[in-house]
């Protein structure tokens, strides 16, 4: 940011020295934190640009002597995961295919549950929710065996709908919690007003409540995109061979035990895989709207 930009033409609040120190403090804190948070990213990027020979030298902070994008190319299009050496490319579209319906469905259901739980009286619903929340503490792996049994009986084992359903199931506790708690902070008068206006359950949800959920929906999107995009285990078990997500390949590249490890390719692959969530994070900014319920109620 240039200096010219900081001295805008119109009137500006003059800054007292105390305030200036305050601002400096804020930026200092944020700056230090940014360094802390970016340090591993730096290492990852640098490593991904190095050759394996250079990596074996063990200077993880050093800049690459001869930076090369080879690892990136390999990760994207030719890293081997078993027989086919096609990199991450292959799984990308599978991942997208899984991601979109899963994210939409799980968030929609979570929001719906949260809405029904916090604005409507449904007998026993809170007890169910408590069970759901408790279930969120169980490792996924414990669910796998019974779910596989159930899916195979239902005929959706190893299909796209199977994996989507799985993500919906496992996303439900957290999504419901997220929305339920968010809604408990909204003024209930709005809900009442909508009922008086003749809106029913669904109309209120879609026209009043959802539009007010923007910030929390963004958080939900962040969480679900990340979780589903990064999921490896569920995709592996439930998606079926045709739909295996990208992370299965990522895992194959990164997670070898006795094979040789190409750290540069690992890092490139990891960064590549995280690009989609990162894009979502970057784009999420303008949706963190200030004062979404401002002007709604007096008092």
């Amino acid at each position: 940011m240039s200096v010219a930009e900081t001295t805008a033409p119109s009137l500006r609040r003059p800054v007292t020295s105390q305030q200036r120190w305050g601002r400096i403090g804020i930026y200092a804190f944020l700056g230090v934190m940014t360094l802390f948070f970016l340090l591993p990213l730096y290492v990852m990027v640098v490593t991904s640009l190095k050759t394996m020979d250079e990596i074996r030298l063990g200077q993880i902070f050093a800049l690459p002597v001869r930076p090369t994008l080879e690892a990136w190319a390999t990760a994207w299009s030719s890293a081997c995961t078993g027989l086919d050496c096609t990199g991450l490319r292959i799984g990308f579209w599978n991942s997208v295919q899984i991601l979109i319906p899963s994210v939409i469905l799980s968030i929609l259901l979570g929001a719906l549950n949260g809405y029904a739980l916090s604005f409507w009286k449904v007998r026993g619903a809170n007890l169910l929710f408590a069970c759901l929340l408790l279930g969120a503490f169980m490792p996924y792996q414990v669910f796998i065996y019974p779910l596989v049994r159930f899916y195979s009986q239902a005929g959706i084992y190893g299909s796209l709908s199977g994996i989507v359903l799985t993500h919906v199931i496992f996303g439900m506790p957290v999504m419901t919690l997220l929305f339920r708690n968010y809604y408990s902070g909204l003024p209930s008068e709005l809900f009442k007003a909508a009922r008086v206006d003749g809106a029913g359950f669904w109309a209120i949800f879609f026209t009043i409540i959802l539009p007010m959920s923007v910030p929390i929906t963004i958080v939900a999107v962040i969480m679900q995109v990340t979780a589903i995009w990064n999921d490896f285990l569920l995709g592996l078990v439930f998606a079926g061979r045709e739909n295996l997500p990208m992370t299965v390949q990522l895992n194959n590249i990164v997670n070898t035990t006795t094979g040789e490890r190409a750290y540069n390719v690992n890092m490139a692959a990891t960064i590549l895989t995280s690009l989609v969530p990162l894009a979502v994070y970057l784009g999420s900014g303008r949706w963190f709207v200030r004062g979404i319920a401002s002007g709604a109620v007096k008092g």
Partner: protein
Amino acid sequence: QEAEVIHFWTSGGESAAISVLADAFEKRGGEWIDNAIAGGSAARSAAINRIIGGDPSTAALFNTSQQYHEIIAEGLLNDIDDVATRNDWDNLLPAPIVDAIKVDGKYYAAPVNIHMPLWIWYSSGALEQAGIESPPETMEEFFAALDALQAADITPLALGGQRWQENLLFSAMMTNVGGRDLWTGVYADKDEEAISSPEFREVIETFIKLKPYVDSASPGRNWNDATAMLIGDTAGFQVMGDWAKGEFTQANQKIGVDYNCLPGLREDAPYVLGGDVFVFPRTEDPAQIEAQTMLAETITAPDVQVAFNNLKGSIPVRSDVDLSALDQCAALGMEIMADPSRLVPDASQMMNEYVYGSVQDVVTELWNTDMSVDEAVDRFGNALRN
């Protein structure tokens, strides 16, 4: 014939090896559908889930421990007895391998390679710098070499401080200090006497004695980073399976020139036979059964065996193959294999997974804490008795 194969060989070298199998299979008219999943337990549980989910793969890479027996007991596998009898596996394969894969008189798995997980690798350069003329042949010489390396400011022993690597090191002490009887006595028979024997105590003591020769940054290190220390001549020795060759090769190191391998530190050091097998999930589909048969045939064919193991770094499962194509260490391995008295099965095949896991827990604690020898003996006993 379409054959979907689940396996966990995902790295570059491993992929190259598996493609040998695939090519051979396709040459025979089949179609190989590759399903690679990194991580042995992930791949295995995926395979099992597929079976339970009613959508089994044609074959899956497996190991022959307790799990293998359990899925056989559950009736989840097809046997491949006809292939075995046709090829006379009873005589063709080394006895420990046969013992491992033959259950209730039937073959349920096709072995694909033999790994010797306890090779002792050394960096010629590092040894040279430390003024060690010839590689050690006994335990005493080994320790002397370690001391020399230490003196030369070279990390004597490159170790990745992970449970399985520490366990490899311990196993190496079991074979090289304890010997074959102790190995089978403790691991296979879980013999109380063997466990409380002075030989076993000595193994433990020797293991403890190795601690100072490992650098402090070892914990958590990956095995290949440890190998990299040998490649960079900053460490002298590493105990690791034959797959380490791949890492050396990648770094353009020449066997016998830049590095070398020792099968053991005594004449009769037991040669541990580990290895991978393919299993064939239960199916009634005749086409699939045919594909399974064909796979089993292909995998164990002599030419395939040589080509495959050359790339994988391991040695062929059958003795009737052409040795000339094998590298120095593999050839050495084949040579030792000819002597059945030196062969012992891998520890994982002598115990169920849980017991073996508990043993590894003891080993890692022994390595990382100040556990006394008595306590260690005690803990081993407990773990093995489970």
